[in-house]
């Protein structure tokens, strides 16, 4: 468990015992959180399996982070915005991103709402105000602040939850973002998911500040350190931060201290830079096991029910995967669309020239014909 100078907000003990005050959640809501966390884990497992089978290119893993993302994002309304970093796809699914769209994005196939333009793990969902991150670490932090400014100016109630990693706190976007939000008193909750690593760089080497939460103080906003493997603590911290915003008290930072259990991505071998012992220590703090123990003790979940939930989730996920395997090839015209609102003449020409060469060699899979000039 991380050591922070601040007291770590914690509601569940390491074994799942209730040590703090339970958030206002009824049994059904408590159980839902569990299912959402399980779904994140099962989807992750399936994606890794598909990656090994060569069906998807790249998986930004989420194992270990389920409590942090689900707990914190569960407090958001669909009208609020979630500005994601690298790993919040599971939170998007909880908030309404259809699993089929999630899988289509992983396949980068023709059902992908972004038309296969981004590499895997760059989800978006307009319906719940979830833009995709670009890949360029930290850039979304400032976008979230600008959009929050717009919400405020346009009289919308929306809260903007801006997610980023420990590594991203070194980016220019983090600095400008926190600074602007504080100066503008923008309706933002900054959610730093400190998962211990930025690829191979430990979060202890990313900053010499006394803690990540302490950074908030320098910008004039509160910073709260949270046990990121305690889904209820993450929920409560996000709830408090969101309420501050809704009460007009301004932005704040919550830091969810957790641990990236697997490699940075499916292409990373973490054994080159970290000890198994540290990983084993965090395995004991697994957010799902811990929460399961709590729910069983509270009588919300029965012994063995997790297995049933898991089996149901895999059935659901596998059906979606099956469906996405059969997607049509990507239309070739998407090569030149969406660069501008309409396809300019020079791009039509480039596309037509490409198509004529492709046709000559029998390669124009899905060219629906030339653009009329």
């Amino acid at each position, binding site marked *: 468990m991380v050591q922070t100078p601040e007291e770590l907000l914690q509601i569940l003990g390491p074994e799942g015992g209730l040590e703090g005050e339970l958030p206002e959640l009824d049994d059904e809501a408590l159980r839902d959180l569990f299912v959402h966390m399980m779904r994140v884990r099962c989807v992750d497992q399936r994606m890794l399996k598909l990656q090994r089978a060569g069906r998807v290119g790249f998986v930004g893993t989420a194992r270990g982070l389920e409590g942090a993302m689900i707990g914190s994002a569960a407090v958001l309304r669909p009208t609020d915005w979630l500005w994601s970093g690298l790993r919040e796809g599971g939170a998007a699914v909880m908030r309404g991103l259809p699993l089929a769209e999630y899988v289509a994005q992983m396949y980068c196939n023709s059902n992908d709402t972004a038309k296969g333009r981004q590499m895997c793990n760059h989800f978006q969902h307009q319906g719940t105000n979830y833009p995709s991150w670009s890949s360029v670490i930290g850039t979304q932090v400032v976008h979230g602040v600008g959009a929050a400014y717009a919400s405020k100016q346009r009289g919308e109630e929306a809260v903007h939850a801006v997610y980023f990693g420990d590594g991203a706190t*070194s980016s220019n976007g983090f600095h400008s973002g926190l600074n602007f939000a504080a100066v503008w008193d923008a309706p933002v909750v900054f959610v730093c998911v400190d998962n211990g690593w930025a*690829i191979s760089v430990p979060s202890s080497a990313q900053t010499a500040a006394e803690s990540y939460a302490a950074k908030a103080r320098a910008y004039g906003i509160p910073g709260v350190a949270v046990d990121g493997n305690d889904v209820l603590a993450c929920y409560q911290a996000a709830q408090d931060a969101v309420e501050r915003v809704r009460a007009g008290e301004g932005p704040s930072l919550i830091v969810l201290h957790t641990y990236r259990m697997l490699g940075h991505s499916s292409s990373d071998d973490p054994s080159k830079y970290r000890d198994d012992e540290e990983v084993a220590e965090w395995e004991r703090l697994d957010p799902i096991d811990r929460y399961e123990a709590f729910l069983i003790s509270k009588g919300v979940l029965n012994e063995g029910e997790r297995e049933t939930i898991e089996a149901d989730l895999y059935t659901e996920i596998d059906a979606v995967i099956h469906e996405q395997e059969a997607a049509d090839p990507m239309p070739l015209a998407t*090569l*030149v669309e969406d660069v501008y609102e309409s396809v300019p003449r020079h791009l039509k020409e480039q596309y037509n020239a490409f198509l004529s060469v492709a046709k000559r060699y029998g390669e124009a899979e899905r060219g629906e014909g030339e653009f009329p000039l």
Partner: protein
Amino acid sequence: MANLTLLQAVNDGLKIAMREDPSVLVFGEDVGPKGGVFLATEGLTAEFGEERCFDTPLSEDGIIGAAIGMAMNGLRPVAEIQFQDFIFPAFDQIVSEAAKLRYRSGGQYTAPMVIRTPYGGGIRGGLYHSQSGEAYFCHTPGLKVVIPSTPHDAKGLLIASIQDPDPVLFLEPKALYRSVKGEVPEGSYSVELSTMRTAREGDDVTVFCYGAMVPVCEQAAESAAASGISVEVIDLRTLYPLDEEGVLAAARKTGRVVNVHEAPRFCGYGAELSAIIAEHAIEHMEAPIMRVTGFDTPFPNTLEHNYLPDHRRVLDAIERVHAF
């Protein structure tokens, strides 16, 4: 001689330069114990210690800005940007600072440093792990821009870049990291900057290219040969400052030119080549100077194989300038 991949040649070049000159140091994101995401810096921390090969916080602006200061004060930094796509947070430091330092100080202060970064498509990396941004930097007086395409040149050009008194952007074609292998001399040697290489001799058409497009153009030349067209393939190796005499001689030799790059066309490197040839050798030209390039769009993901110029698109252009 050893038979190395381009990636191994880069690694070897770094080690040689660090052994030769204790002021050379390597840093960036994940270059230390992990050895870089492509493993280009593998073994450096083990051999040279953490003072000379180390990880930085996640800030390209910090990496390049600090490299400039180090270079101004007696070190020879070789900074890695993990993907060329992530160089833009440091654009200001490169364009406003590193490139202009010598000029603005009347030569009193300089920034002899190398920025190594993998560029280009071919790994299904989508629009932020695939870009070819060379044109932005070739438009920046004070910088040198180098792109190898063979293991031999990767090592020799890297050593030359590290020894160079000016800032060098060293773009590594990631698509070729492991796909090309070749003979690489042991020990130290350098390949002179601003000299092109004739990758293949020919008489009918000249193709100018660099980086990952070199093998593509060689393949196109091979196909053209089958239909009786003899193609000269020029690997530019240093984009800026360019070996203009070499380029003009190769253009005049055939009078038919095709410029190939994977970056977008508009204001791309091919435009500069076309302009230089048109200005100085138009009277030798038998056909319009053609370009085969990426589309004027961001880099795609699923359709990257359609976006990237392949040997067929290059062959098509060769045949057209030949038949003109």
